[in-house]
């Protein structure tokens, strides 16, 4: 079985960390895996996309339109931008937060108000209030791991393996808070 995951967000939200956690998971599960990342100019607050593909054997490193099993979106507008990469029956895990792009701030554009409606009309959608929940545990930056916790339920990996990899990947000082964030996203903490 092959699983294609797409992680989207705004540059600086930690899509790279997230894809690397997924990569390690697949590796520990003994699977072939490929990740594709964006570095350089696109990271400066722009729209950022990373791909993770794992299975017995993986060819191309990118996920294509109508190909993703799971879309992990750290921001609503980015979820809308890339939802069509989901395959029919795919799952969107969306952080319920709005970061207006400069085009909206300057008034040249309007932030769409019907994003969630549009996505739920076509795909299974899980909305996560990760930004608020991460703030509530005193660690706003751990929102990405919280979203990952919500997405974890839709992957073939056991919770214990997730926790093990998170422990190995995040900076040592943040292990505790990231574990907590993950479990909240997973639905086992508060």
């Amino acid at each position: 079985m092959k699983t294609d995951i797409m992680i989207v967000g705004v540059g600086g939200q930690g899509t790279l960390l997230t894809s690397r956690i997924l990569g390690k998971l697949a590796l520990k599960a003994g699977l072939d895996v490929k990740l594709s990342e964006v570095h350089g100019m696109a990271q400066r607050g722009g729209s950022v996309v990373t791909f993770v593909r794992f299975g017995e054997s993986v060819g191309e490193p990118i996920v294509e339109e109508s190909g993703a099993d799971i879309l992990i979106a750290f921001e609503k507008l980015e979820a809308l931008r890339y939802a069509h990469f989901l395959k029919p029956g795919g799952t969107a895990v969306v952080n319920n937060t709005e970061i207006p792009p400069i085009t909206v701030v300057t008034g040249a554009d309007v932030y769409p108000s019907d994003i969630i409606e549009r996505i739920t009309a076509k795909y299974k959608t899980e909305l996560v209030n990760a930004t608020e929940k991460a703030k509530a545990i005193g660690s706003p930056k751990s929102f990405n791991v919280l979203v990952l916790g919500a997405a974890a339920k839709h992957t073939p990996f056991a919770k214990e393996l997730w926790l093990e990899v998170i422990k190995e990947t995040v900076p040592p000082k943040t292990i505790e808070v990231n574990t907590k964030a993950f479990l909240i996203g997973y639905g086992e903490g508060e």
Partner: protein
Amino acid sequence: MNDKVLMLGNEAIARGAYEACCTVSSAYPGTPSTEISENIVKYKEIYAEWAPNEKVAAEVAIGASISGARALLSMKHVGVNVAADPLFTAAYTGVNGGLVLVAADDPGMYSSQNEQDSRMVARSANIPVLEPSDSGEAKEFTKFAFKLSEEYDTPVMVRTTTRLAHSQSLVVLNEREDIKTKEYIKNPSKYVMMPGAAKLRHPIVEKRMLSLSAVGGELAVNRVDNADSEDKSIGFVTSGIPYQYVKEVFPHAPVLKLGLVHPLPVEYIRDFAKTVGKLYVIEELEPLIEEQLKASGIDCIGKEILTIQGEYSAAMLKTAILGEAKPAKPLSDSIPARPPLLCPGCPHRSVFSVLNKLKKHAAGDIGCYTLGAVPPLAVIDTTICMGSSISTLHGMEKARGREYIKDWVAVIGDSTFLHTGINSLLGSVYNKSNGTVIILDNRTTGMTGHQDHAATGKNLAGEESPSVNLTAICTALGATTVTEVNSFDLETLEQIIKRECAGDGVSVVIAKAPCVLLKGNVYPDIVIPVKAKCVKCGACLRPGCPALTKNAEGLIEIDREGCNGCQLCKKLCKFDALEVQPRTSKVGE
């Protein structure tokens, strides 16, 4: 050993150099090549450095090779142009120790000013090119490149693309080979390229390429997949990342996978072509393989149905070759774009806000500050290549005169100034130009992810090293005045820019403030809005800081996580409606 690990393409190239017993690496940072050096420096057996530019890096590696060591140089595609002068002649001298150039192309221009194909440069320079398709091959091909380099007495290019460089896949690790540094034997007819010697070397270069082309079919890096396929109605010639797309869509079709893309093993390809019906050539960017096949009378299809621009994908092949419907479209036709931006607290924004206020035009350069071209600041008028700002401004002055240039400045980063801006400043002064140059000195190479350079006091290995004084250099080059100013001191900055633009000669303003993302920087303060005092004038929003937004009532909101407390917005507010507070404070929430 023989562990399987997940590695970036660039990390794998560094590993390949390590295993091949490379001992010297020189490079200038550039997306998507930077991580090669950042990883290679972790191997203590390899001396690795940042050179001030790619030409210098090439000469360092050439010197190491002539002395008998295996040497690597890496750069982005446009860096290959900077290094072209030594490279074209290194093809003539050949090597002593293996010499490998990694050229990282950027189809789709994720972080580049053009989309050139480095294979074309290599073809013009008569340098063999290897093109890997995943991280595992990136490592193995780098090792093979060293071997090929020594066997054929030539520099060898390993060509990567962004998709390969920044994708991770599994790599099997091997031990470092034990290869001795070769003896250096004085040989001016090989290493001194004056006309008499070069005339004798040129036929050797041509002969070398012909003999490599002839044995191409025997090289393990060139191979045919599915040679025994039952369906041979269509077949493919491909290389690099596009190979993955071909395999994704046509897993059972015969595929000639080229590892060596220059020189082409034409007869080997001709034999393969005879075994298939329609032959497709799948290569990103220029039709390098396709045109040579067509010129050799091998019937094939390529750019007639596939684009010369950007990246390929499996979906693209499905549409072009199988006639399948185009891939799904976004769920909405009007999704606001999200272009990259200068970070909150970026010192460039502060300088640009002054230039914007003074209605200056700016000849720009390559770096984060190129983003000063986009609204709302829209200060930058031109961006060509590394180091071009000062010389393009000089060209304008010579074309349109001194009065015209008073509405203009040149802006260039510290790392870019040291790359090739110095030469431009020298040329402007020497040729009695007028104009004001602003060096945006943020103490790092920002856009590529914070690499040190000759003015930061640290080297690639993180050791302390001599730091060049920018003011002293500019003075020595003959700038009429050189003025240092804090990038966030708006008043002084404005006064200085007005004064220098009105003056004669070539003057330099060094606007100093460290990049906001530099490690070790702490931002204890944030700015918060005082709603009662806000008159909704929008002055604070004008520089386009992403931490500031306007809410439904037209009042300002500041993202506490995003704000780095630079206070640019506060300085622009005439109504005291923005206040500085310690980040830890809950007041104002």
